[in-house]
């Protein structure tokens, strides 16, 4: 049967073609969970960007008359102990959470990716030296590592990103190294060398574009764990400081009132959960959509 499918898959020039991105989207569409993830994340990004327009109140505006209000028409998700509108704070919080998630992953990807690519391409003792350091870092639980770095750097948005990012570096180094190793052995790399391509060109033009798939998947999943990690750090007071409405910090602020006013913790908790879930669904969907073996 492979013959027939292979022949079909090989494509016929008469048939219309789709671009790479369109192909991935086409395959992604078949997974409802992944589509839910994608739509959720797109909406969330939209909300984060237009927070100033969308939020009914400024996030820091206190209104002690209305403190601890349960959801009403005026305050759709209720208010917290200072009478601040929870919905507005969640909307502004999305901005911070997404920022932390994406920038932290960016840091991890750049540092880890470079280390991994160098280790994978050159091999030998360079590889050994880099990867053993990564192994040591990997042996420390990621959250613990983030706490240690955050504690050393002190609280604050930027330090939070660095702490979460650095703690994820070993993961990316390993993934990038793995895919560079396998692609380095492919015949088209040898073919590129045969026509006189330089090392740099081979890495940039041949190896990196072909190792993107696993990296994209890992990054999507990585944003989720970075957001979670950041929320965790904020919860224990090492992350964002009040009055900035980080979701983890909101959770932490509301926990002393959890018995009487559960909505203080419920909504930030839900926001974190849904975002993580959406990112994970999207990551899993992308993994399937980007896998050339599943091309049917």
């Amino acid at each position: 049967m492979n013959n027939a499918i292979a022949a079909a898959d090989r494509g016929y020039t008469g048939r219309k073609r789709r671009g790479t991105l369109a192909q991935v989207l086409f395959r992604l569409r078949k997974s409802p969970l992944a589509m839910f993830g994608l739509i959720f994340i797109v909406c969330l990004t939209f909300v984060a960007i237009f927070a100033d327009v969308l939020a009914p109140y400024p996030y820091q505006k206190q209104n002690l008359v209305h403190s601890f209000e349960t959801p009403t028409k005026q305050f759709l998700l209720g208010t917290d102990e200072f009478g601040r509108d929870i919905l507005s704070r969640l909307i502004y919080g999305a901005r911070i959470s997404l920022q932390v998630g994406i920038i932290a992953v960016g840091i991890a990807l750049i540092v880890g990716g470079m280390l991994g690519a160098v280790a994978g391409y050159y091999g030998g003792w360079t590889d050994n030296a880099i990867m053993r350091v990564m192994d040591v870092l990997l042996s420390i639980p990621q959250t613990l590592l983030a706490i240690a770095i955050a504690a050393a750097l002190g609280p604050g948005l930027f330090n939070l990103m660095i702490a979460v990012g650095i703690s994820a570096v070993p993961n990316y180094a390993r993934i990038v190294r793995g895919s560079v190793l396998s692609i380095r052995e492919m015949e088209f790399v040898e073919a590129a060398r045969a026509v006189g391509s330089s090392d740099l060109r081979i890495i940039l033009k041949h190896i990196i574009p072909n190792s993107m798939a696993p990296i994209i998947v890992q990054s999507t999943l990585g944003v989720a764990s970075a957001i979670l990690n950041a929320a965790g750090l904020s919860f224990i007071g090492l992350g964002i400081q009040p009055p900035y409405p980080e979701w983890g910090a909101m959770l932490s602020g509301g926990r002393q009132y959890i018995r009487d006013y559960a909505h203080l913790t419920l909504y930030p908790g839900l926001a974190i959960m849904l975002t993580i879930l959406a990112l994970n669904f999207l990551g899993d969907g992308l993994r399937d959509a980007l896998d050339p073996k599943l091309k049917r």
Partner: protein
Amino acid sequence: MTEIQGKFNPESALLLDVRDLTIQYVTDNGTVHAVENLNLQLGRGETLGVVGETGAGKTTTALGIMRLIPSPPGVVRAGEILFEGEDLLKKSEPEMRAIRGGKIAMIFQDPMTSLNPVMTVDRQIAEMISLHRSVSDSEALTLAGDMLELVGIKRERMHDYPHQFSGGMKQRVVIAIALACDPGLLIADEPTTALDVTIQAQVLELMKKLKQQFNASMILITHDLGIVADICDHVAIMYAGRVVEYAEKRALYSRPLHPYTIGLFNSVPDLDEDREELAVIPGLMPDPMDLPTGCTFHPRCTFAAEECSKKKPDVLEVEPGHFVACPIRAGLGLGKPATGGERK
């Protein structure tokens, strides 16, 4: 294609009779017509060579007979597969499991991947035996050792793992597994394609010998007309999911009729002859999702007439047992060779 049935062989002598088999793969991008209206007959003790290029539907046919078409996307649309007079397509899954390996065994192309790497070879053969026969474990292992000796592997190596064997030896183990339950029909899918020529010669020699010894019938799927010349009795040439020519080996090699068969012969460089240029079939295999109308070969055919693009060609019997799906070439008669097609 009704003319074929029951003409060249009395019904009773047939082991396998495939009638009008149509298999499709339904995918998101369209329907692949992998096998269309396929008719094949195989007598007891005979070897049938199925020849064709990648995508001709050879492997699909084999998997169809084994009822191993992956579904989805594969669908058997029509047809009958009569094995010992019973239609395999009507069998239940448990009945099929007893037939697979027991009465019909299959040898796959790549010996490297068809053996389990974490199991010793004698265990793999014994597993096959105990699945189909009621024997104790130790008996099965003894029989496994016998089988290995039969295919030319020393008994003391029976506890080795597949990776300790070379490619040719692995294919021998695969053959031992296939023959372990004394099947009536052996389907070999490109059994020597992954092997070197000298090893291929060894394995083919072995298969010829064992086929006689076990009195089994065999369907040999290959793209190599040389192998067919060596060990087959009948040959079916497949193109784009259809059998375009079916004949006894001698008739086919001395008087190939279908333009595709002739093209196939001419594409192989000849050892005895110096030719600067190989005669090639122009164009490419058609897209199985978008087959040409009428005769699927007509866009590449030098004999094509207008009617070829309109009407599916009838299968005609030009001499007893020699069927060809090309009215034009059949009409020319046997006396006139195609240009460049006559072989010594």
